[in-house]
């Protein structure tokens, strides 16, 4: 069984906020709620790093542990989802989450007036029937059931934000890290993010050979 994960490659993220926009557009997220956002560390300093953050679909999710109505559940693929019908908007999950993923449509408000919690669903909808109107209104589009991956990752222009089967995603990132061959604060820029030009040429040639072999089969 595949396990779904997000991974953001800070060397490639250019802080374009395309992922944020894609998410808001795909799910028609209400004004004031951001299921995903881009965080920049050392903003303005040479070597600054940006990463795109949303629900990380934790293996041992603290939001699930603190929810008094037990509205969270985890799918077979490790996606942490919640049932808005059971949510009472208490905000415990917001305080428990280290990533600030849970969002409330009414913002900070006293006496439980926050509204139902909203968060990234890994584009996997909710407990309602797949693709139903109710599911879309509460949780947004269910792209996983359509055979697609989260819109944020598919939209990422530099492929900094990776999503999908954790094994494949980690393989992709490992390949990138090996190509870069160096680490540390001094390692940044085009070569670090995409490898040296000769390496890119080698990869292109390898890929062409593979495609020819596949075509010959």
């Amino acid at each position, binding site marked *: 069984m595949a396990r779904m994960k997000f991974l953001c490659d800070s060397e490639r993220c250019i802080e374009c906020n395309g992922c944020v926009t894609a998410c808001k557009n795909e799910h028609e997220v209400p004004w004031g709620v951001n299921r995903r956002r881009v965080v920049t560390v050392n903003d303005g300093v040479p070597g600054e790093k940006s990463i795109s953050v949303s629900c990380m679909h934790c293996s041992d999710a603290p939001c699930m542990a603190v929810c008094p109505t037990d509205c969270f559940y985890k799918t077979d693929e490790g996606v942490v989802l919640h049932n808005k019908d059971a949510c009472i908007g208490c905000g415990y999950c917001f305080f428990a989450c280290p990533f600030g993923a849970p969002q409330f449509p009414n913002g900070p408000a006293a006496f439980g007036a926050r509204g139902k919690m909203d968060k990234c669903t890994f584009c996997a909808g909710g407990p309602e029937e797949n693709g139903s109107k109710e599911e879309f209104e509460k949780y947004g589009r269910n792209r*996983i059931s359509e055979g697609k991956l989260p819109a944020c990752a*598919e939209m990422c222009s530099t492929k900094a934000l990776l999503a999908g*089967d954790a094994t494949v995603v980690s393989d992709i990132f490992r*390949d990138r890290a090996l190509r870069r061959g160096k680490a540390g604060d001094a390692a940044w820029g085009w070569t670090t993010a995409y490898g040296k030009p000769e390496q890119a040429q080698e990869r292109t040639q390898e890929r062409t050979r593979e495609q020819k072999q596949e075509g010959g089969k």
Partner: protein
Amino acid sequence: MQDQQPKNLKRRGFLLAAGVGSAGAVALVASRVGKDAAKPLTTVSAEEKTGSYAETPHISNYYRTARV
């Protein structure tokens, strides 16, 4: 003592009307709430929920482009 007996009791009818009216309003609201509560939930169980992750050509293409 007989002079202290109220001669006109009609004005107390207001209290009766108010009581009946409020009971009717409560019954009306309760019946509507009951209808909403009786609506079947559209949630489906985990066993019934289909359409989980599968590596479709669309997803394979995404993985391929991410390797560039």
